[in-house]
């Protein structure tokens, strides 16, 4: 009986979530919100702070080094981007990544190529792959072994910003770096 109630609750929750997701009003992805809450609850334990601090710093440092790189519309070349709220020297970011990977030979990464919504499904899938490969080839040319880098195209399936304007599209034309092992 208990299982039945749990199942019912799960179905109702899932239905509610599914319904929420189906609304046409653009929303932030549901999964993004809850993460920070748990960290705040654990912070009052003072003794843990000195140990936790370097980990947070390392995470932030890795986040900074392996930041997303951006692309111009319908392009996969690596260049300076200065448009629609994005100002980034892409080769410089990749130089930082290759330096770090050279010094940390255990690190393996996956590069996920993403596109804005202004193309067909088929073309954006291919363009996302070209963007991911473009960054991989840059790193390989700078001495990183090819078998330490995987590439994947998400096409336009994973927009960072679901809005329909130039600023959102500029954010969504990116490569994201996922660290697979350290």
């Amino acid at each position, binding site marked *: 009986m208990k299982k039945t109630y749990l199942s019912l609750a799960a179905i109702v929750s899932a239905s509610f979530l*599914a319904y929420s997701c*189906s609304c046409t009003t653009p929303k932030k*992805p549901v999964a993004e919100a809850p993460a920070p809450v748990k960290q705040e609850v654990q912070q009052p334990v003072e003794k843990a702070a000195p140990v936790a601090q370097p980990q947070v710093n390392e995470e932030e440092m890795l986040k900074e080094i392996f930041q997303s790189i951006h692309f111009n519309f319908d392009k996969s070349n690596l260049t300076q981007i200065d448009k629609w709220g994005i100002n980034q020297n892409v080769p410089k970011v990749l130089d930082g990544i290759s330096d770090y990977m050279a010094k940390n030979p255990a690190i393996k990464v996956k590069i996920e190529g993403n596109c804005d919504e202004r193309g*067909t499904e*088929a073309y954006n899938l291919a363009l996302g792959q070209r963007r991911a490969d473009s960054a*991989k080839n840059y790193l390989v040319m700078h001495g990183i072994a090819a078998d330490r880098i995987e590439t994947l195209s998400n096409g336009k*399936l*994973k927009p960072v910003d679901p809005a329909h304007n130039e600023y959102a599209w500029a954010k969504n034309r990116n490569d994201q770096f996922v660290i697979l092992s350290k």
Partner: protein
Amino acid sequence: MKKIVFLVISFFLAVSSSYAQNYELNITNPNYQKIIINVYNLESSNPELAKKVKNVIVRDLNMSGFYQANDINSTLSNPSDINGCNYAFYGSVSGSDNNVILNAEVYNVQNQKVVINTKITSNNFAWVSHKLVDNFMLYDTGIYGPFESKIIFSAGNRKVKNLYIADFDGENIHQITHYNTNLLLPMWTTDNEVSFTGYLKQYPSVYLLNLSNAHLTNLYSNSNFSENATYYKNGLYAVSINKNSNINIYLVNKSGQIEKQLTNNNGIAISPYFTPDLSKMLYVSNSEGSPQIYSLDLGLGVSTRLTFDCSNSQSPAVSPDGTKIAYICAGSNFSLNIMGINGGNSENIISSYYIDSPSWSYDSRYVAAYGSIDSKEGIYIINTINGNFSLAIGANKLYSDFSGLDVSKKIN
């Protein structure tokens, strides 16, 4: 494999008890003078069945973009009394949902004579209606109608999309896969097999799904990227594959072996589509900077660029009569264009915020495509002769996003 809820052959003729009646009709070309048709109640000892058959007749006639069907809530006793319309549909229905006999007549009001008197039987109530409308279109336009076909489409949300099959008019929808990932860009490869691009493993890869036995084949797995499996002939499929950071089109056999490389570009070559006589392959390449449509002469091995007027030409589809190419001009706004098979004479049919995956009906007059035409997301049937369009399948809470569709050949 267990996750696939496959369709048995009988699916195509099976009855859907939940056959929905609601639809919206959107007209882009209000100046087009439509032919007025009165559709009268069908006499029957099974009024529920008669109502369903009649509703599909009305729906198909309206969706054709040529006709305005008036749903008349009475039977017709004397055709010579009719006025205010060009044609009248009436008759009787007997049997049950899965054994339907339709005796129908179509009366030409101006000439005062019966122009169609037919008996249609089927084990699917919708199919007798589709056949009647298709036969009427043959009488009225000289070309058999498009409604005896199926649309396969990908739909879901941003994270999960599965494959569905519906009648050409958008009704009778059946979900055929139940995966927890994205299945995109479905295409009919044979009468009983579809291809799609799926994230079933880690990377986007092309698969074949047999609709009779649910057998799933990963057509090409030796790359981290493949998409768009289009059937060529002799068990060969054209597939876009990533090799050495260039995406080109290869002929692959069912065992996953590459038999021939068809394009050799630096960049992207995707969306292969063969002409009906298999002499040419249309495809999209960005080898000259932006995506454009090219035609590869398979005998000579020479490619010719076909599009010049749009900076982002994508998703070509050749009409079954081999004379026209539908394609998408992408950008801040999208448009569905049609040009001659050798390029040129490009004509804009519809523009909207987004439109993708054009696919021709077997009569080479209609294009099915998905997008947000008229601010409503869904799959549309577009009459390329007069520009009228209808929403066939609207987005709902089960599927808010679409990612590809393909219309089948005529199903007998």
